[in-house]
C-alpha cells in the first residue's frame, strides 16, 4: 500500500463545501480522508508539504485539442498531457474532430491507449454526432458509448439539416448521451473571422455577428421543447446567448454551458492591428459580451470554465490574419486566468472559481471527478495562489506557443499535480 499525506495547505474542495487548513491523506491512488489529523493507523510513506499553498481537486477541462491522431506536427497526446499536468489539469475532454474523426470505437481505443501510455492526465472523449462530422448520417453513438465516449458532439462543424439535428438529439437521448454543441449558424458566420463589430469595420475583416451564435442557441432550445435531450452548449461568446440560456434553465430545460477562460479577459479590441493570436472561434466579442459571460458564470447559468486548448505549429499562425488557424494554446493559463475572477473586488470567491474548474465540469461530463471526497481518485492540484509569473510562450510545456497572453503577468501557479495519487508534475523552479 502506497501512502501519501499532503500537509499544511489550504484545502479547497467545493464539492464537499470545504475551504480551510487541512491535510489530505491518500492511499493506493485514492483519497482516504481530508482533515486535521491522519485517520487511525494511517502511516504516510511520503509527506508533501503544501504550506502557503492551495490544495484543490485536479482541474477538469471540458475542451482540449491534443492534435493526435492526425496532426502530430502540431502536438501529441503525450506532449499535451504533460502540458495539462503543468496546468494542474488532471482530466481533459477531447472533441471528436481529430483525423480520423472519432466516429468509430477503434479511434476511441487508440486515443485511450496513447493517453494511458502518456499517463500524465486522464483523457475522456466526445464521440462524433454524425459520421465524419458531415452532418448527414448519425454516428454509431451506442457503439461509441460502449467504447468509452462520455458524450457526443459535432465539434465546430455545423449540422445544416435541421431534421438531422433533431434526430441526432433524439437518438443521443435514447442512449443517455449528452450532446455537446458549439452553437454557430454557418450561414450567418459565412467566412467571418472576427466579431462583426467596430474592429471588423475598422480593419475590413469579415465579421461573425453575435446572432450567428444566438440563432443557433435558439434553434436548439426550440427543438428541445419537443425532444427530451440533454444539451451542453460549448464556448459561449455572446451575452445574449447567456440570457437565452437563463430563460431556458428557468423553464426547467436540461441545458448547461461553459465558457473559455480567454473569453472572460479579452475582447475584440485586443486584436489591435491584426494580432494573429487573437484569431479565435468563436471570436472575441465586446466588453458587454465579456461582462455578460462573467455575470452568467456568477449566476450559475454558465457552470464551467474550460481552456479550449488548440495548440498550433508556428506556420499555422504565420500568414495574414484570416488565413491563419484559429485557437490558442491554453492549458497552462487556464487556472491563473480563472483565478483573476476571485478576489475582494471580484464577484466570486476562490471556492466558487475552483468549483467551475472541477466539480461543475465533472458534473457536465457525468464523471465522479473534480472532488477530494474519500474514495475518489486522488487527482490533486496544488498551487501557490500568490505566485506571480510572466507568460513566456517559449517556456510553455505545450508544443503550441500560440498565446495572446504573452507578456501578461499572472498570479497563481501550479507546483504539484497528482493523478491517481502519483505526482505527474512538480515545478522544478518554485516561484
Amino acid at each position, binding site marked *: 500500500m502506497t501512502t501519501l499525506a499532503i500537509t499544511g495547505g489550504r484545502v479547497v474542495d467545493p464539492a464537499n463545501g470545504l475551504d480551510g487548513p487541512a491535510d489530505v491523506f491518500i492511499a493506493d491512488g485514492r483519497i482516504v480522508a481530508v482533515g486535521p489529523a491522519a485517520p487511525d493507523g494511517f502511516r504516510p510513506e511520503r509527506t508533501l508539504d503544501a504550506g502557503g499553498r492551495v490544495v484543490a481537486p485536479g482541474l477538469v477541462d471540458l475542451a482540449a485539442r491534443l492534435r493526435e491522431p492526425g496532426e502530430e506536427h502540431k502536438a501529441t497526446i503525450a506532449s499535451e498531457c504533460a502540458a495539462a499536468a503543468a496546468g494542474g489539469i488532471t482530466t481533459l475532454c477531447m472533441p471528436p474532430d481529430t483525423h480520423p474523426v472519432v466516429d468509430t470505437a477503434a479511434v476511441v481505443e487508440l486515443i485511450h491507449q496513447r493517453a494511458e501510455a502518456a499517463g500524465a492526465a486522464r483523457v475522456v472523449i466526445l464521440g462524433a454526432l454524425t459520421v465524419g462530422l458531415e452532418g448527414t448520417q448519425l454516428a454509431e453513438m451506442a457503439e461509441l458509448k460502449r467504447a468509452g465516449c462520455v458524450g457526443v458532439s459535432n465539434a465546430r462543424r455545423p449540422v445544416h439539416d435541421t431534421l438531422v439535428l433533431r434526430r441526432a438529439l433524439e437518438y443521443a437521448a435514447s442512449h443517455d448521451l449528452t450532446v455537446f454543441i458549439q452553437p454557430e449558424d454557418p450561414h450567418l458566420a459565412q467566412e467571418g473571422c472576427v466579431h462583426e*463589430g*467596430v474592429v471588423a*469595420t*475598422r480593419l475590413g*475583416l*469579415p465579421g461573425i455577428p453575435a446572432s450567428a451564435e444566438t440563432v443557433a442557441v435558439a434553434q436548439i432550445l426550440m427543438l428541445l421543447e419537443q425532444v427530451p435531450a440533454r444539451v451542453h452548449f460549448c464556448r459561449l461568446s455572446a451575452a445574449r446567448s447567456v440570457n437565452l440560456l437563463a430563460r431556458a434553465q428557468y423553464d426547467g430545460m436540461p441545458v448547461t454551458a461553459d465558457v473559455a477562460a480567454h473569453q472572460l479577459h479579452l475582447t475584440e479590441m485586443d486584436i*489591435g492591428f491584426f494580432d494573429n493570436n487573437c484569431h479565435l472561434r468563436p471570436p472575441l466579442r465586446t466588453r458587454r459580451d465579456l461582462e455578460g459571460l462573467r455575470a452568467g458564470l456568477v449566476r450559475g447559468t454558465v457552470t464551467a470554465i474550460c481552456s479550449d486548448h488548440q495548440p498550433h505549429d508556428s506556420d499555422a499562425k504565420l*500568414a495574414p490574419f484570416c*488565413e491563419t488557424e484559429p485557437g490558442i494554446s491554453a492549458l497552462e493559463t487556464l487556472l491563473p486566468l480563472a483565478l483573476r475572477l476571485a478576489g475582494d473586488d471580484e464577484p466570486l470567491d476562490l471556492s466558487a472559481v475552483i468549483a467551475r474548474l472541477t466539480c461543475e465540469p465533472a458534473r457536465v461530463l457525468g464523471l465522479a471527478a473534480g472532488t477530494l471526497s474519500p474514495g475518489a481518485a486522488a487527482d490533486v492540484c496544488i498551487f501557490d495562489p500568490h505566485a506571480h509569473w510572466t507568460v513566456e510562450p517559449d517556456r510553455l510545456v505545450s508544443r503550441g506557443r500560440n498565446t495572446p497572453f504573452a*507578456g501578461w503577468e499572472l498570479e497563481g501557479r501550479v507546483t504539484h499535480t497528482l493523478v491517481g495519487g502519483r505526482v505527474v508534475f512538480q515545478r522544478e523552479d518554485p516561484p
Partner: protein
Amino acid sequence: MRERDIQLDDQGRLRHFLTIEGLSREILTEILDYAENFTTVGHQPVKKVPLLRGRTIINLFFEVSTRTRTTFELAAKRLSADVLNINVSASSTAKGESLLDMLRNLEAMHCDMFVVRHASPGAAHFIARHVAPHVSVINGGDGSHAHPTQAMLDMFTIRRHKGDFTRLSVAIVGDIMHSRVARSQIHALNILGVPDVRVVGPETLIPVEAPQLGVHVYHDLAAGLDGVDVVIMLRLQRERMSRALLPSAHEYFQCYGLTPEKLACARPDAIVMHPGPINRGVEMDSAVADGPQSVILEQVTHGIAVRMAIMAMTLGRAGGEA
C-alpha cells in the same frame, strides 16, 4: 504586449506606409506638401529625379491591377529606382510556397522596398512585421482593409480644388462595407479635420458600427449629397449581387447611381471623384463621369506624384536625400 506603430521608425518618421489610421495630421500634410514638388516632373523633358537612384523596389501583386501597379511603377522609375514587377496569381501560391518563404527569397535579392497588393486584410502589416530592418513596405491595397496611397492621392486632389479641409462636407457613396478605399479615405478625412464625412448606401453595404469611424450614415442619395463639396463614388463589384447584398445592378443605379439630377443636390462647385475603374451605368452616368465637375483623370495623374512622395519619404530617411 502592445507593439508601437510599426509604420514609424524610432524618430517618428515614416518607415512603412500600411494604413492611414494612427498617422498624425502633420505626417499627412507633409506627404501632400512633398507631393506638390513632384507634380511637375511629368512635364519635364527628362521625367526623372535622382532621389532613389540605386534602390530596388519590388511591386508584389497578389491581385490583378493595371492602374495601381502602373502608377507605382512610374512613380518608382521617375525617382530613378530599379523596379521589378511580380504578379503572383492564386495558382502559383497554391504550389505550396508560403507568403513568408516567397518574401525571404525576394529579400535575399537585396531589395529595399515592397509594394504589396493582397486580397487578405492585414497582409501588408504581416509582411511589414517580417521584413529585414532596412526594407520598407507600402500597402497597395489589402483586402477590404486599407488602400492608403489611393486615399492620399484623393486628399491631394481635394486640397488642390478646395484648399481648406476644415470647412468641407464629403460624401462617399456605394459599397463601403467591402471598400479598402473608403476606409482609408474616412481615416484621412477625419485626421485632416473634415467636419462632415458621410457614407451613402443601402444598409447591406454599410459596415456595422460605421459611425464609430467618424461618419454620418445616409441611405438616401439625395439627402446624402445635399450641400456637399466633394462626391466620391465607389466601384461596385459584380459579385455583390450574388450574396443577397443587392437585388440587381439596375436597381442599384436607380437608387445610388450618380446622375446629373442627383449631382444637382450637391453644391454647384462640388467635385466628383472615383478611384476607378468606373462601371458606367452602374454607379455613375457617363454624363457625370465625363462632365465638368469630374476630376477622375486628375486623380490618376496625382497618383504618381503622391506615390513618389510616399516612396521618397519612406526610403529616403536613412540617406538623408529627402
